[in-house]
């Protein structure tokens, strides 16, 4: 009974909330527009935007040495999670059956496991650092922790269900993934989509002023 609910109506509802919520958030950001800048441009806004979108992903040498581990952890987590989400066979099969109607190339099993290991390694290091460092602790709010906890639980239950032998474990994983989908548009997890816009906006503003930032 509850299994059918998780597999059916709740899945449809959560997917709808996710899609509508994400589109709505992006549209409202784009519709907000910019204030007209009447000053004489001292550089190219477009090249500034493009530069910043990519340069923010590169390790900043002037940053403190201890930031290096966190940068590596960030890459491990995001790349691992991306690979898991889009190239793990159980996920691709699920998308093909429920959303797209077609599948695509998947990772071999060892790469699937390695991606999960890297994603866990990165997430745990980042989360523990968030809790321990006085700076990140002050900067973090409930949303940050809730997002981390939900992503962690989805990953954990996914790994517990790896044997694919028990329906209950699959349903727990799916339920948590659905809760994450519902929570996603209203949280900082939206940075998955908005990071390009925010970096681009900052880069364009600075580029127009002739500042290499």
């Amino acid at each position, binding site marked *: 009974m509850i299994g059918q609910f998780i597999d059916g109506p709740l899945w449809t509802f959560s997917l709808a909330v996710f899609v509508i919520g994400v589109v709505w958030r992006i549209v409202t950001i784009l519709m907000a527009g910019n204030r007209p800048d009447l000053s004489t441009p001292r550089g190219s806004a477009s090249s500034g935007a493009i530069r910043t979108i990519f340069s923010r992903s590169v390790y900043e040498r002037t940053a403190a040495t*201890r930031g290096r581990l966190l940068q590596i952890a960030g890459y491990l987590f995001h790349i691992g999670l991306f690979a898991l989400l889009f190239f793990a066979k159980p996920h691709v099969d699920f998308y093909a059956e429920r959303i797209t109607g077609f599948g695509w190339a998947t990772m071999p099993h060892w790469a699937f496991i390695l991606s999960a*290991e890297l994603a866990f390694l990165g997430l745990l290091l980042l989360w*523990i650092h968030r809790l*321990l460092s006085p700076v990140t602790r002050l900067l973090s709010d409930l949303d940050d922790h809730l997002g981390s906890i939900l992503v962690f639980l989805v990953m*954990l239950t996914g*790994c517990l269900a790896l*044997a694919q032998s028990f329906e209950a474990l699959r349903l727990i994983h799916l339920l948590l993934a659905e809760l994450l989908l519902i929570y996603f548009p209203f949280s900082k997890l939206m940075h998955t989509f908005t990071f390009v816009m925010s970096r681009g906006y900052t880069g364009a503003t600075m580029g127009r002023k002739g500042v290499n930032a």
Partner: protein
Amino acid sequence: MGSMISISIPPGSLGAKAAAWSLLLLWLMLLPGQGLAESKQVKGLPPPAVLNPAADLWRDIRQRDMATTGTTQVRGVDSGVLINANGDKWRKFRMDQLIPIGGYLLLGMGLFLILFYLIRGKVRIAGGASDRKLPRYTSYERLIHWFIASIFIFLALTGLIILFGRPLLIPIFGKELFSVIASASKEGHNLMGPLFLVALILVFIKFVRRNIYQKGDMSWLLRGGGIIGKKHVPSNFFNMGEKSMFWMLIIVGSVIVASGLVLIFPIFGQGREWMELAHVGHAIGAILMITVIMGHIYIGTIGMEGAIEGMSTGYCDLNWAKEHHDYWASQMEKRGEAISNEAVNRFSDPDTNRSLGRELREAGE
């Protein structure tokens, strides 16, 4: 009303020979039964030795006398072995010794800690908390400590479910629910296991220098680390107990990791016996480590006032440091590393305070 069919067999013909052989075979088959009947009749006499031609075959299969490997077209490690005799020994060891003794050891440690707490109580800072603190652990050191701690706790819980689940959890949850829990535990344990190796390497690199035994460690040990009795026992940055726990973590942890890798990656040609050996090493090492870590957690939390502060905030109380790590505390105080509680609250971050302190000292302030 019926018809009778009579068959006449000419003597010396093929049919006659077949009939004669059949009768002989039937008589041979009845021989053991006849012997048994006779033995029942003649009480007191030993039964005649009846050779079973299959006995040798089964003795070889069960490998009673010596290890035998047959030939087969099936490719794979141990595919020529029909019955692994050591597997039975391993199973018996696991069920009759490992699980009960391991269980009693863990239970015993738990009871010991409860009793110890009831008798000794919480070890307080003798002079009370001071108004100054010492930076003890950097953010990175705390990060890797809590990283290995979280991985260890997860692995310990899932490992204990795998080892003790059948006798302990089936009576509570029933077989069906336990099978779900056991499967989840196994998958989680296998997936998180390799992360323990990463954590172990990070911890080793960061903490090895301060865990080399030095002068004063033995006297700390001989005086029971100060936890027994009320006398002051000085020590270095890490005391003998902490250093020994570090080396146990590294050595036993390496055994656990190596045996765990043998178990979850059966792709390097390791046979059943290697797997059994790895399992025994893995389980014994893990039980030993869990037992010791229980003591570590006890001291760090309810057992000693101020002990967890270093790992949670990065600072420790100056009086606590003088009481438990006197040699190190004196050096730090001489170098002017002691910071007021107010300054600690202002900056909170040991790394920031450390660099700020360095800058102030260099500026002559």
